Structure formats: structure tokens, C-alpha cells
């Protein structure tokens, strides 16, 4: 079960790193978040600790439902469907993905946990999505993928006290909500969510 879920997480991240259609990106993200929340539930079921369930439920609520719904709503309103010009195009971003995955696995050779590595890979791939896109909304998705990695990393690496873990997760989720709101405002102020227009501040 956990193997399948980690495979789903990785596959969705790799596919997302070369996608250019925004609504597919959002859908991939929600699938990934669903997998992560299922990972949390499975771990909770295995270890019997409560905080896994809480983290899982929060992820399920915020990342699989609220953010994708809000994001796809703004996609529909803006009629932006695809990135026309990527900064790193699909081909090279896949190659970059492959290289960075290999590097990550070499680097984290002496960790025995699958999810630590998967989390790190998600962080790197989220960075690639973030760097390679111009639209604010896909940059947001890239950032959220990074956050997913952070969550995976956090739940699998060390154990912390319950309140601290929940606070961390809450803050991470709050940041993603804030980003959603920011995208909304940017889109209102600029009539577009292309960050190409975001270069008004000059030296």
C-alpha cells in the first residue's frame, strides 16, 4: 500500500514537471495530495498515533479539496488554460527532473525511509515547476508541491511533539491558502496571472 502510494506521488510529480496545461497541473496536484493524505492515514493506522490522522485530515481538506477548487475556479474565470511559453520547456524540464531525481537519491543514499527521499524529490521537482513557469497560478502549484514534499519529509523523518507537528502543518497550510488569495488579487490587479507582467519594479 505504502509503496503504491509513494509511486503515485512520484509519478504525479514527474508528470507535473513537464505539463503545460494549468488545469491538468491542478488535477495532478490534487491526486498527489490525496495520496499524501492516504499515506498519513496508513501510517496512523499502522502506528496508532493520533497526529497522523489529524495531518491527513487537514491535508485532505485543504489540499485535495479547497485549493484545487479555488484554483480551478480562477482558471475558469480567467480562461487561462495553458502556458504558452515555458521558461524551461517540457523536454528539458523532464531531463532536468531525471537528473535531479538521480542526484537526490545519490545524495540521500544512507536514509532508509522511502518517504524521506520522495519528500526531497517533491521539493526539488516543485522547485523545477516553480522556476520553469510564468503564470502565477502554476508557480503556486509548484510551491504547493514543494510543501507536499515538506509534509512528507516532516512526518517521516523525526518524531516531534504533537502540538509542534500540528502547528507546523497548520502554518504550511495557511501559507498555501495565503498564496491562493494572492493569486486571486494578482489576477484582479493585472487581469492576467502571467508573471511576465510582474516586472514593473526596476532597479
Amino acid at each position, binding site marked *: 500500500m505504502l509503496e*503504491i502510494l509513494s509511486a503515485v506521488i512520484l*509519478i504525479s510529480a514527474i*508528470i507535473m514537471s*513537464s505539463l503545460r496545461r494549468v488545469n491538468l497541473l491542478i488535477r495532478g496536484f490534487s491526486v498527489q495530495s490525496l495520496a499524501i493524505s492516504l499515506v498519513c492515514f496508513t501510517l496512523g493506522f499502522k502506528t496508532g498515533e493520533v497526529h497522523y490522522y489529524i495531518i491527513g485530515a487537514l491535508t485532505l481538506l485543504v489540499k485535495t479539496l479547497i485549493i484545487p477548487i479555488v484554483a480551478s475556479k480562477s482558471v475558469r474565470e480567467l480562461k487561462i488554460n495553458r502556458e504558452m511559453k515555458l521558461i524551461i520547456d*517540457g523536454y528539458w524540464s*523532464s531531463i532536468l527532473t531525471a537528473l535531479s*531525481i*538521480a542526484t537526490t537519491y545519490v545524495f540521500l543514499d544512507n536514509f532508509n525511509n522511502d518517504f524521506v527521499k520522495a519528500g526531497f524529490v517533491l521539493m526539488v521537482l516543485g522547485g523545477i515547476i516553480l522556476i520553469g513557469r510564468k503564470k502565477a497560478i502554476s508557480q503556486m502549484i509548484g510551491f504547493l508541491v514543494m510543501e507536499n514534499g515538506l509534509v512528507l519529509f516532516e512526518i517521516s523523518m523525526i518524531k516531534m511533539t504533537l502540538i509542534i507537528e500540528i502547528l507546523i502543518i497548520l502554518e504550511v497550510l495557511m501559507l498555501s491558502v495565503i498564496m491562493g488569495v494572492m493569486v486571486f488579487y494578482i489576477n484582479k490587479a493585472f487581469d492576467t496571472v502571467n508573471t511576465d507582467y510582474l516586472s514593473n519594479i526596476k532597479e
Partner: protein
Amino acid sequence: MIINIIQSMILIIAAPLFSGILKRIKAILRGYEGAPVLQPYFDIKKLLSKERVISKSSSFITTVGPIIILSAAILSAFLTPVFFTAGNELIGNMFILIFILSIIKFFNTLIGLDCACTFGGMGSSREMFIYMFAEPVVFLILAFVYFETKSFNIYKIAKLNAVRTDISSAHIVAAIAFLIWLIAENARMPVDNPETHLELTMVHEAMILDISGRDLAYIELASAIKLAIFLTIFINIFLPFGMAVSLSAAALIKAVILYLIKMLVFLLIIAIVEISIAKFRLFRVPELIAASFSFAIAAISMMYFS
């Protein structure tokens, strides 16, 4: 030994049936009735009864090409396990299998170039363009399989994976990479549309535009066998559970039934993919294959560094 020959014969005979089933599923999913599943057999029979027409300006390549293609396809069918594997065969090296399958591609492109028709040349160059990107992927997948099972022999790989109970996540990722490669290699939907003869987009059909009669029958049969072989390889490497590893009747029956079910599931998946995705532009095909490349790299790193 005997059982290997029998299962390969069954695969060759059933290959047109599988493409018939695929066409039928697609027709049903699109909401019309479609041709009967045995239609490919009728087509081949009809084509075989026609006489050979060869262009005057073409060389010996067009004369011998279709036969070489068909024989390569049949030969590679004899190198693959279908539902039974003992795991100690001398034949079945994956590299040999892949290269024999490449002969099909090679002669296809030669035939396309040979008749000096513009479409043929265009199809050949496109085919080579895709092949150039797809070739490294299969070596990466083979490397993954080697890291997983320490073997390049497909019979042995199938046997080892058939008795394995746990699947790693690397296995799944590699399976996805192989699936994408399979689609690209067999000229299926996001890469090439096997149904149309539209000049601007066709790849595989463009190369065999000049072939007719018996030669066309050979090539059609060969491509049906090729699809069946690829799916079988996929099933045997990545999903070989329930495969017969001993020669008992119960195991064999179970293996055959499971094989058919798996085959039908994958045909269904391919059909769904084909009816739901539009064909990519030619220059976006490398993106798809690059995704497959990164899946393969991911699988290898997951397997090797764990």
C-alpha cells in the same frame, strides 16, 4: 521446450485477434458497433489472395523487406514467454529481443525511403526522429530490470517476478516508463494515429503507403504481432503474477486465463487512452518520451540507492 514453442505459436496466431479486439473496444467506447473482432484475419486473408505489385523504380529492398519484417516478428515471438516460464532457457536475452524488434523498424524505414515517394521519406524521417528519442529509454528500463532481478533473460525475469509478492514503488514507476515507450514504439495514439491516412500527421502508415497485396498482409500481420509481443513483454516483466512456472494443468489454465485478463485490461487501457487523448504534434513527442526517460531514471535511482 515444446511448451515454449506452443505458447509462441498461440501468440502469433492470436495477435490479429488482439488488434481486432482493440479496434472493437474503441468502436464500442466511441458509441458505434464496429467491425467483428475477427476482421483482421479476414483482411489478411483477402490481402494474401491478391497478387504482388511492385514499383519499377524500387530496388530489391521492397521485394524482400516485407518478408524480413514478418520473419523478424515471428522470430521475436519465439523468444518471449507468454504464460509459462521455467526460467532456465538459453534463449530470451532482452537485448536480442529488442534488436530483432528493431529490425522491423529498420526495414519499415528502408521501404519508406526505397520507393522514392515523398510521403514515404517523410514517414521514415519521422519514425527515426521518434526512435532516436525512444531508444535510450528502453536501455534504461533494461538497466532497471537488471538491477531488480540481476538478469537480462526475459524467461528468468518473468519467473523471478512471478513469484515475488512485494512490489516496490520503483517497479511501478518503471512500468509507467515502459508503457509510454511501448506506446511510442508501436505508433499508438499520442504519438501516431494508426487509423488515419492523413498526409500531414501519419508516421507509420506513410512508410507503407506503396505496399499492397501480399506484402501489405505481411506487414499488417507483423505489426499486429509486434503489438502483441510488446504487451506480452510488458506483462511478463512488470505484472507476471500467476504465471505458470511448473508444467501442471491447473497452473497452465490459471496462467492462460490470467494472461488473457491482463491482456484485455491493457487493451482497454490503450483504447481509453487513444480515444481520450488527441495526437501530439510531432515536436511534442520528445516531451512525452523525455517524461518516460525521467520515469526510468527515477526507477533506477530508487532501485539502486535503497
